């Protein structure tokens, strides 16, 4: 589209403002992790690295981080498996109820987390506990996997839709059986979408608060829950800022990865 120079400048300024609005609050958190006051008074009068030292020595964070990593990894693996399976079923087959299944996959992310959390909590306590499966790391993982499925599903389904079915036929034509065709041709074809979906699922799980609150057993604290609990704890709040700052910086890694992956696809 040919836009006038002034329109282009307006758009550019607008984009700049949006970016500023996105990043200033985050920079604020990073700045605040050096704020000497405990409540993060603004403007910052005095800077300190004391909270960073405190965070470094904080065992609770490390434990929570470890829990989060465990939960997110397992939930991601489950989501990868289930999400891909649904994606395959929906993009490769025509059957009755297809739309309903599509809706079903989207539902856990679309419904308020509190509803999902409460519902799962209720089920675990009233139905599964008598069967010996009470709240535990497992219930947290179940909760997370449930709403992570859609992330993998979306990515993989979109890719499968664009993928050339001819490649699979070509492989079979060369004599590859169904299993080999899948691993040698189909999977490489949607691998990057699979990984990108996995990354998103991981991030989603890693960041989840509400469902975790309702599905976590005693003593199980994921990183967001730790943050949530400690935000309310006056002496810990500045340490939370440090963790938040670290998270912001660390978030570059998955972004870099997913960008590289999607970049690959365009080739």
């Amino acid at each position, binding site marked *: 589209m040919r836009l006038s120079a002034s329109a282009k400048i307006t758009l550019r300024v607008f984009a700049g403002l949006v970016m500023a609005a996105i990043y200033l609050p985050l920079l604020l958190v990073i700045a605040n992790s050096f704020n000497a006051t405990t409540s993060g008074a603004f403007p910052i009068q005095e800077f300190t690295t004391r909270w960073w030292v405190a965070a470094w020595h904080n065992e609770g964070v490390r434990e929570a981080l470890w829990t989060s990593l465990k939960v997110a990894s397992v939930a991601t693996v489950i989501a990868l498996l289930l999400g891909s399976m649904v994606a395959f079923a929906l993009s490769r087959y025509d059957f009755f109820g297809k739309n309903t299944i599509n809706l079903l996959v989207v539902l856990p992310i679309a419904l308020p987390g509190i509803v999902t959390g409460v519902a799962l909590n209720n089920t675990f306590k009233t139905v599964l506990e008598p069967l010996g499966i009470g709240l535990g790391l497992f219930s947290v993982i179940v909760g997370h996997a449930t709403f992570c499925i859609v992330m993998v599903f979306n990515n993989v389904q979109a890719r499968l839709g664009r993928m050339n079915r001819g490649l699979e036929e070509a492989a079979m034509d060369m004599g590859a059986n169904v299993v080999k065709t899948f691993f040698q041709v189909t999977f490489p074809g949607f691998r990057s979408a699979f990984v990108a979906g996995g990354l998103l699922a991981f991030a989603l799980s890693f960041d989840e608060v509400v469902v975790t609150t309702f599905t976590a057993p005693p003593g199980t604290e994921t990183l967001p829950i730790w943050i949530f609990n400690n935000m*309310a704890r006056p002496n810990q709040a500045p340490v939370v800022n440090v963790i938040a700052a670290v998270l912001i910086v660390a978030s570059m890694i998955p972004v870099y990865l997913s960008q590289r992956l999607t970049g690959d696809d365009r080739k």
Partner: protein
Amino acid sequence: GCGGDASTSGSGTTGIQVPDLPMASEVGESEGQVNIIAWAGFVEDGSTNPDADWVSAFEEETKCQVNRKVGATSDEMVQLMRSGEYDLVSASGDASLRLIAGGDVAPINTELIPNFGNIVDGLKGQVYDTLNGKSYGVPIGRGANVLMYNTDHVAEAPDSWAPLWEEDTEYAGKTMAYDSPIYIADAAVYLMATQPDLGITNPYALDADQLAAAVELLKTQNGLVGEYWNDALKAVSSISSGTAHMGTGWQVIVNLAQGDGGKVESVLPKEGATGWSDTWMIAAEAKNPNCAYKWMDYASSAEVNAQISQNFGMAPANALACEGSDANAAHCETFHATDEEYYKQVWMWTTPVEQCVDGRTDVTCTNYQEWTKAWTEVKG
């Protein structure tokens, strides 16, 4: 006791029906672990803050490993205690009656807790933890819900809650209130002073009309209030930044705000105030009763109780926790730990139940569920 009227508190006068549960007769061998649901800062093993660690020593001493879950609200604690996963809870007054009446916690054999003897008088035998002569809780500490104000904006120290409640307040939009149904009691405390003809004698014993009056007052306040808070940090940042000029708060919030350089002061207004006191309670079907008893005694020792109360920011329950060091004494001073006169003006949180805790038998009082509904209506 609450409101200074001993006749309204204490054993058995309310006639509340509670399940008859046995209590422990002795403390046996350690089971190896104990599961505790507690407020943040009550059970610390140094993992969040290396300076706060009284769990490690306990584990060493008793061979009871401590599994802690931090409870965010009283409601959540009640819920979690019912899951049967926990042996102990640090219940506040607005949770304890529910637990006792629901048969979720067992009476405590205070004989088995040597440190129980050192609990300050004002915390013994309160209605929220003692029923039919049986004690259900071991006090940990207490605090009042004071009136905080930012001296940048409030020139003269107020002596009344009126600026928070009255429509013509000059602080409209700049006040802060606590976000919980139990806050209805604060309205009742104010009504007790300003509208005596309503006949409120205990802010936790409101009949339907009295509740309606409180709700009316709260709705007025809803139009005036800038925000509600339910976590301490939010309150610290609001009051010290001046987002709120005035509001309900805890002493610890005031201290933190001051520590940050905020020009914040507090008073206990003339109408009196609500407050809270927390007690250890043991689950009726505790899987680890021996470790639980050991913990209750351990946590009630002067030394540990001092640590807990200083870490959390409240008045310790053990009178001895105010001794031993200047820091201990200073802490107790700030939090009025041994000042029974001070706590006479404070109505400790108590779960409102149908049997009026003020002793009335001719009316049915409103229960906590009704309060919750009313609170939702207040916030609109």
